[in-house]
């Protein structure tokens, strides 16, 4: 029983960075922008969060630094694609490479240092309950924030005028402009939000999950987050589910290695990625359904008609 709880705890911790990055990118894509730089924003968030936490010894300062760093990366993307109308795909790829390089440079002096344990929720009695206590009431604060964020984004898109405007801009930016909504302004906002979320996802890796810094430690999670958005058909709840699916397979394959399953470890390590790709392919096989959910203006540059 103790093992099951440990596995479940592991899944939550493996999934949370993906939840942050995916929910941020989901909002960005809903507004009709594809930012392929998630990986780059995550790793810059990771080193920013880690270095500030080490320097100040304050976790909150680290989290804020990660948010700001991710948002600054996204701002760079915004200036290039929204103001200067550069190609979104190429700019996103460049942003990832830039982020990986920048983080490596920034992190040179931090290799091998450790950040200590991130504060966890601790409610007397509840957190001490057997089995469920640790799972439900004993996680670190960011886990609860990630869940709240998913619920909040889902509510925002379904119930608020702001959410409606962003959906409308992603659906038909020319019409939105004709009615009088500032398309580029809203896209900057979603980009900043997405960047901050990706930065936070990165910081979760370096400050909470494995509290030390290693170059390239995001290991493709930004790409998985991008894939999850599509897998989830741009629905927040399903993005959460997808993140936990990926996290779950990651942890299960680790444990199965521990049990001495007679499969090469390398193959097991591939599993989460393969499973995610497989799910993606299956979901995308219904072209009509994917099209139905996809924001119609995704990746299209917007020029205001003069």
């Amino acid at each position, binding site marked *: 029983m103790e093992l099951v709880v440990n596995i479940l705890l592991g899944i939550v911790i493996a999934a949370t960075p993906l939840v942050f990055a995916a929910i941020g990118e989901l909002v960005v894509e809903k507004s009709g922008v594809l930012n392929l730089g998630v990986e780059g924003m995550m790793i810059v968030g990771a080193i920013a969060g880690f270095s500030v936490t080490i320097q100040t010894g304050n976790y909150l300062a680290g989290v804020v630094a990660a948010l700001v760093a991710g948002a600054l990366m996204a701002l760079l993307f915004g200036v290039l694609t929204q103001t200067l109308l550069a190609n979104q795909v190429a700019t996103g790829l460049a942003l990832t490479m830039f982020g990986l390089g920048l983080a490596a440079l920034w992190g040179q002096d931090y290799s091998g240092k450790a950040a200590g344990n991130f504060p966890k929720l601790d409610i007397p009695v509840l957190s001490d309950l057997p089995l469920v206590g640790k799972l439900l009431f004993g996680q670190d604060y960011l886990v609860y924030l990630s869940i709240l964020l998913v619920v909040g984004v889902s509510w925002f898109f379904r119930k608020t005028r702001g959410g*409606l405007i962003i*959906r*409308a801009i992603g659906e*038909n930016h020319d019409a939105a402009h*004709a009615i*009088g*909504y500032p398309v580029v302004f809203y896209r900057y906002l979603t980009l900043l939000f997405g960047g901050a979320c990706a930065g936070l996802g990165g910081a979760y890796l370096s400050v909470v999950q494995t509290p030390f810094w290693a170059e390239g430690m995001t290991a493709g999670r930004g790409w998985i987050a991008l894939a999850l958005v599509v897998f989830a058909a741009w629905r927040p709840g399903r993005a959460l589910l997808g993140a936990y699916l990926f996290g779950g397979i990651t942890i299960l394959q680790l444990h199965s290695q521990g049990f001495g399953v007679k499969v090469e470890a390398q193959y097991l390590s591939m599993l989460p990625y393969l499973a995610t790709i497989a799910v993606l392919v299956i979901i995308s096989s219904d072209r009509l359904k994917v*099209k139905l959910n996809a924001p*119609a203006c995704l990746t299209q540059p917007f020029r205001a008609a003069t």
Partner: protein
Amino acid sequence: MPEPLLELDGIARAFPGVLANDDISFSVGKGEIHALLGENGAGKSTLVKIIYGVLRPDAGAMTLRGKPFAPHRPSEARAEGIGMIFQHFSLFEALTVAENIALGMAPELAKGDLRGRIVEVSTRYGLRLDPDLMVGDLSVGQRQRVEIVRCLLQDPQLIIMDEPTSVLTPQEVEVLFETLRRLAGEGCSILYISHKLEEIRALCDHATILRGGKVVATCTPAEETARSLAEMMLGESLSPPATDRRTPGEVRLRLDGLSMASETQFGTDLEDIALEVRSGEIVGIAGVAGNGQTLLMSALIGEVRAARPDAIRLDGRPIGRLPPHGRRKAGICFVPEERLGHAAVPDMSLTENVILSARMRKNLSRNSFLNLQRAARYAGDVVARFGVKTAGVDHAARSLSGGNLQKFVVGREIMQEPSVLVASQPTWGVDAGAAAFIQEALIQLAKDGTAVLVISQDLDELFAISDRIAVIANGRLSAADPVDTLTIEQIGLRMGGQARGRANAPGAAEPAHA
């Protein structure tokens, strides 16, 4: 003259290379239906964008109810009681009717029981609407209702309508006019933009006529004839295309049991399409946009393959599974609807653009190598014979004006001497001169023995050039009946899908039931 609601004084606006509006002055009275008449490119759209706050004028001033009026954005114009129905609907297909309406309103107005108010206003004006339906699932006429209801919910004093009837059936136009007259009766002013003269004569109290960005005339449309209005609009007199009938020969193109599911989200499926086009005749396919024309065109071109090869036959040969170049080789050429991006590659030169479509029929390549000289000569021939105004065949297709590019595209296909030519919206959005030239060329092509199929939403055009007309509604095609046995009324009913004139023999049109 009723008291003026909106007055324009010396409005001017320039774009790089064009003076779109030049010293425009006129006024719209309270409760008046005022027409703004002009050709494509006369400056109508620029002017209404200025009134609606999308653009700002370089010079001139406007007054609304006697007070200066200079909106900086559409929300300011809306707050002053100006509503706009766009030519290309500003709707979001993946959102519901209610969401679409909420987006076009001030936040304060969108609160509360919006759905209830939508139902109330739409019933009051006889424009039934279900607020929970997805806009993508609505017909074009219903989409326009969404725009109108959105406008009405804001208690407008002036409604601007930009070419509102171009996508409607004649019956839907009647309903729209009823609504507009009623609104005018209630004191709401309407600025009605169109180039359809009969409509303006039937509906509008006053007309301001624009040409080349300037006001060239004002008149009372009911006192003018369509011809005199057209001459004011064009500044020249027009001769209608010659309409002597040709004797049709053998069947060149035969569609039989052509069914196809749409691949796009809100597309229309084709159901059991049957049609014959004979050598020497022009068959028109009428219909409101979005009733399957796009898919039918893709099926004819071969961008989407038919399920059975014999669903499409060319001179008896099944071509339903052939790719586009195979069909061209077999003798069928195409003029797709969208000239920039579909019929021609915008950033490629005219020479390169002729290679794309005429490579096979004009031997412009051999062993995978292009014969650029021959291609340039062919492009030059097209330019010369079709009077295309261009600086040279090595210039990009994008650099041509709409009318010139369309002449080039049509010429490129016609000069391949196809046995069948399929053209979709061949004169859409081109100036009257180019339109007349293209129609003349199609008629000449049919005279020379080609079977011509024209898909168009312009009923006047179809009546002017076709021998027979079929109607596509909801993905089904009616029988093609000779034009002289058809009235606009009957076509309109079929466009609405009310009468299914699916007779076997041509000429056996069912009488239309309202």
